[in-house]
């Protein structure tokens, strides 16, 4: 357990000492601050638009950080050969992958936490302190990032960051279109396409189950059924993808 924690904390330390991360965080905070100006140049429910843009910025930059760090998580270790020294210690391969993953998740929790704190500050100044639904929405965002990062980690165990980025981006896009795949299948004339669409729907992740942003922006009551089912789905799916990543890495020869 202590060894797992050591790997996780080292990964976290590496991430927070990376200047690129600060640039992304800077842009995210900048975006949220700029969203305040939208109040003066939009018509309709101005407060909602500000909340929507600011929360959208957290979603977008959170996903960007997850993909940016996730796709090079293992690959960088192999390219720089830092994994050689770690794996020559009494560290099983699964522990290495899990430790790296947990370190990355810790980084994401801190990053999203910082963005959320900025959001709360801005909202308190301009509107009011955000209701609990916003925090639940952020927790759901973290579940989505957890799953996305697991996929990025899996791709990173056997492909270069460019390829892994492409795959992860595809998962991100498909994940948000999963419901459309199901609907497309229902409307298809061909039985084969219908079956294929439904199979794809069950195999690929559905990231929309974690999307509570509309509820949070409109400050509606918390949909607890969606929250609990989403949490179970996210945890189960993440565990399965991580197991695949561990299995792939277990059999990999380090050149």
């Amino acid at each position: 357990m202590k060894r797992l924690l050591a790997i996780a904390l080292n990964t976290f330390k590496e991430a927070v000492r990376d200047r690129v991360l600060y640039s992304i965080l800077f842009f995210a905070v900048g975006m949220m601050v700029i969203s305040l100006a939208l109040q003066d140049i939009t018509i309709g429910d101005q407060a909602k638009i500000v909340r929507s843009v600011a929360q959208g910025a957290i979603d977008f930059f959170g996903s960007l950080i997850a993909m940016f760090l996730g796709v090079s998580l293992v690959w960088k270790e192999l390219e720089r050969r830092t994994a050689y020294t770690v794996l020559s210690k009494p560290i099983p391969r699964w522990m290495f992958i899990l430790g790296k993953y947990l370190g990355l998740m810790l980084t994401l929790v801190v990053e999203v936490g910082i963005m959320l704190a900025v959001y709360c500050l801005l909202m308190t100044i301009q509107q009011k302190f955000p209701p609990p639904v916003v925090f639940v929405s952020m927790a759901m965002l973290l579940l989505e990032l957890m799953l996305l990062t697991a996929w990025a980690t899996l791709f990173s165990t056997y492909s270069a960051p460019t390829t892994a980025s492409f795959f992860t981006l595809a998962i991100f896009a498909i994940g948000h279109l999963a419901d459309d795949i199901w609907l497309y299948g229902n409307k298809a004339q061909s039985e084969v396409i219908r079956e294929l669409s439904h199979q794809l729907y069950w195999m690929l992740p559905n990231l929309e189950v974690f999307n509570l942003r509309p509820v949070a922006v409109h400050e509606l009551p918390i949909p607890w059924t969606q929250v609990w089912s989403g949490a179970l789905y996210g945890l189960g799916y993440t565990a399965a993808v991580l197991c695949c990543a561990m299995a792939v890495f277990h059999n990999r020869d380090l050149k």
Partner: protein
Amino acid sequence: MTYAIETHNLAKTYRSGFFLRPVVGLRSLSIHVEQGQIFGFIGPNGAGKTTTIKILMGLQSATGGTATIFGRDHTEAEARRRVGFLPERPYFYEHLTAREMLRFFGQLFDVPKDVRNRKAEELLERVDLKRWGDVPLRKYSKGMLQRVGLCQALIHDPDLLVLDEPMSGLDPVGRALVCDLILEERKKGRTVFFSSHILPDVQALSDEIAIVIKGELKGIGPLDKLVRHSSNYSDIVFSGDIPGEIPNAKPVREEPQGHVVRVAPEHVKDVVTFLYEKGAVVVQISPERVTLEDVFLSELEKSAAVDQKRMGILA
């Protein structure tokens, strides 16, 4: 008795290229390293030294044979608990300082906090890097990284040190430091298994040596045993041209003073007489002892001759 390292018919075949052509990296390597020994592992580039070490350290899987470390199967992560490893051209986390790195690696061996902090300071002092302890590793030179790499290999007081090319990239002072360290560790009863290209160092340090060429073990044992089949010789330097071959002498090189031929001790008198009779002037006669380098080069020549023969048969 449990050996520190024991391999039996260890083999590794890589798959290379689009058609996954098999490439032999290691062929039936059987060695055993006794506890408390310094074991030198030599071979030219691509001989299979690093492959063997990577297999032992769990970084690559063997395609045949078995290997144990202190009696435990090398594939178990726990088999490496008593091992300190320095990889060839070590790369460490550049964002860490040397102190942070040593503490991190100490944690991976479950070394208690106070012990690893004390040990880190001792080791940095030992390799003369104490004042650099809080500088990020990205600012370190190659030699400094090699020294801090040795520290991480020793952070948990291992019973076995596995060092892949530990002298590579070091200046003479650094080399001397590594040699001293290896000898000190042996004095403490630890086993050292190291690969190197610097044959005089291997000869000076090792209790036992293994020569690997093209993935095959070509010789193993103490230096005395390895040189048993190669007798001592004398190099004779002479000036003047001798047409044709000189009986019982093998030309080895040209020097500013003249031609150099290698002669077995019992033929020195005959060769000198022959040269005198042909009008050559003998400039120098140097009796030489067979070195590890001679044995190594002779094995390389034999291997090349076998290859040529094989190619001839195929043609």
